[in-house]
């Protein structure tokens, strides 16, 4: 018995000292539990846009289009905070994202805060080196109102065996009517209704989600959805018996359903991207009658883009990417009977250009953009030059 006690003590001391010698190096559980880290990133783009016209003289525009600072803090292995602070055109400051993500396991994360709506490619991933051309695709401006973000909560996760990623969020909707004026219209669609989490008003939450499949080699496909109703400032202090006022407020609300599909394919030096978005607006007739706006009933937009790294088969490790993108979008695809389709809103664009990656994180971009609304015969030409970076 005496011996065994000694053995016990001896072994305990041994195990204790063994643990002391190397307390962290070999114990991944400890390392994982302790992992806290703070990281900083950022991106930006500085643009020059010049309309080219043989019959008129036009000002060019030079703009620090955006400068963005990203901060991430990992509180522990489960919980992180992500923030994105953006300066647009030098003097407009926005918080583009701020959320807390809590991981239960890789299949289930809880997320709450100011979230990006997972619609299309660019709204979620918009660092300049990730897209071709000086400016983001215009489908991601007029149909998907990039950068589209609202306050919300929800879940996300990945099923690695199936190569699926999903996101499901309950978010605040667009503000369709504020302080006596319509925020949605024919030309810009839903864009003017974004509340961006700044003193936003809410009557009814909206729902959004995306499923991405990345199981096929070189290919990634995403399906997005967004459903809900817009908010309105008219629901302010209405007595529940005041049916007329409630009706009036109801007529400033439209239903929004948006669907999207996006594809990214890469093979050797060739990259293909495509995106299609469709939105259906409910109650546009009443909305337009009450507010005097010209919001369409249906909108759509798509783009396809083919890019090739010219240096692919050479020894040069840098990338020189030539690309062509075709876009077609119409914010007046269908209108109600009270409205005539405005063919200015049916727009086509062809963008062709070159991007040179000075380093992997800095690209010098140039492109020429031909755009044409259906209403006119000539293509408008714009020359774009830009510097894009991330760090």
């Amino acid at each position, binding site marked *: 018995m005496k011996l065994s006690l000694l053995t016990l003590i001896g072994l305990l001391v041994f195990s204790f000292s063994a643990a002391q010698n190397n307390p962290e190096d070999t114990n*991944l559980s400890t390392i*994982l539990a302790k992992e806290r880290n703070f990281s900083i990133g*950022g991106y930006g783009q500085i643009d020059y846009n010049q309309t080219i016209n043989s019959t008129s003289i036009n000002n060019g525009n030079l703009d620090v289009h955006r400068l963005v600072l990203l901060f991430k803090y990992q509180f522990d292995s489960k919980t992180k905070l992500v923030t994105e602070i953006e300066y647009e055109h030098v003097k407009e400051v926005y918080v583009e994202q701020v959320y807390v993500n809590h991981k239960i396991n890789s299949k289930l994360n809880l997320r709450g805060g100011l979230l990006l709506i997972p619609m299309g490619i660019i709204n979620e991933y918009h660092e300049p080196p*990730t897209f071709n051309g000086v400016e983001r695709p215009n489908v991601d401006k007029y149909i998907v109102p990039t950068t589209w973000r609202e306050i919300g909560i929800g879940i996300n996760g990945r099923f690695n065996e199936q190569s699926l990623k999903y996101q499901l969020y309950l978010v605040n909707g667009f503000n369709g009517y504020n302080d006596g004026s319509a925020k949605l219209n024919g030309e810009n669609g839903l864009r003017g209704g974004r509340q961006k989490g700044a003193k936003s008003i809410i009557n009814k939450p909206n729902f959004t989600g995306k499923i991405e499949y990345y199981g096929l080699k070189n290919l*990634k496909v995403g399906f997005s959805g967004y459903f809900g109703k817009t908010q309105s400032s008219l629901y302010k202090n209405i007595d529940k018996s005041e049916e007329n006022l409630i009706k009036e407020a109801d007529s400033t609300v439209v239903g929004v359903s948006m669907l999207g599909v996006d594809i990214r394919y890469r093979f050797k030096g060739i990259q293909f991207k495509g995106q299609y978005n469709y939105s259906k607006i409910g109650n546009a007739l009443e909305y337009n009658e009450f507010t005097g706006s010209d919001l369409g009933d249906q909108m759509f937009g798509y783009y396809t883009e083919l890019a090739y790294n010219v240096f692919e088969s050479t020894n040069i490790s840098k990338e020189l990417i030539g690309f062509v993108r075709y876009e077609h979008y119409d914010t007046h695809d269908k209108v109600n009977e009270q409205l005539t389709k405005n063919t200015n809103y049916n727009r086509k664009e062809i963008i062709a250009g070159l991007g040179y990656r000075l380093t992997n*994180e800095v690209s010098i971009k140039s492109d020429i953009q031909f755009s044409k609304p259906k209403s006119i015969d000539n293509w408008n030409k714009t020359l774009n030059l830009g510097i894009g970076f991330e760090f």
Partner: protein
Amino acid sequence: MKIVIILFVNVFLLTGLNSNLPKKFDKKIDKETKKIWNTSIEKTLIQVPDSIKFSAHNLLFELKNSDSLVGIVSINRVRGCKIGGCDAIITDAISSKYEHFYYSVILDNDLRVLKVSVLEYESDYGYEITSKNWLKQFTGKSDNEFNYGEEIDVISGATVSASSLVFDIQMITSYLESLKKNKSIF
């Protein structure tokens, strides 16, 4: 009584050693080795002296099927993407910018890859590397056969995570080759 206590203590010590891995890593690797060899495989931590350690985060286990060595599994932590992107291949030394992830690689006695798995991946960027189809490309290859963009396809939007995984597997296989040659550990 004596025997019971000694047995108890020894069991305690052994389990102590095996808890080097978080449970889910442990389970996942056991499941994979079982699938490869169609039987439960015992894995024992290899105590690598600090002087010849591959990295601070690297763990190596011997894989044994009824006392005969069938392979090795390495677990390591590598650089993932950074917040705001996954485009740039790592060239700078500011590692705190990057997120990290854990992966395991199971190798046979000839140090040929049997299976690569991503054990833990946090980032919203570059998670495409967790795709089975992409990871399958490593299987059957050994030292010097892992070149990002050649034998192993690139993934756009996951440049950092994909290239650092490929690079790490390349390094670990040649590290293990040299250990084997010098008979340092096994």
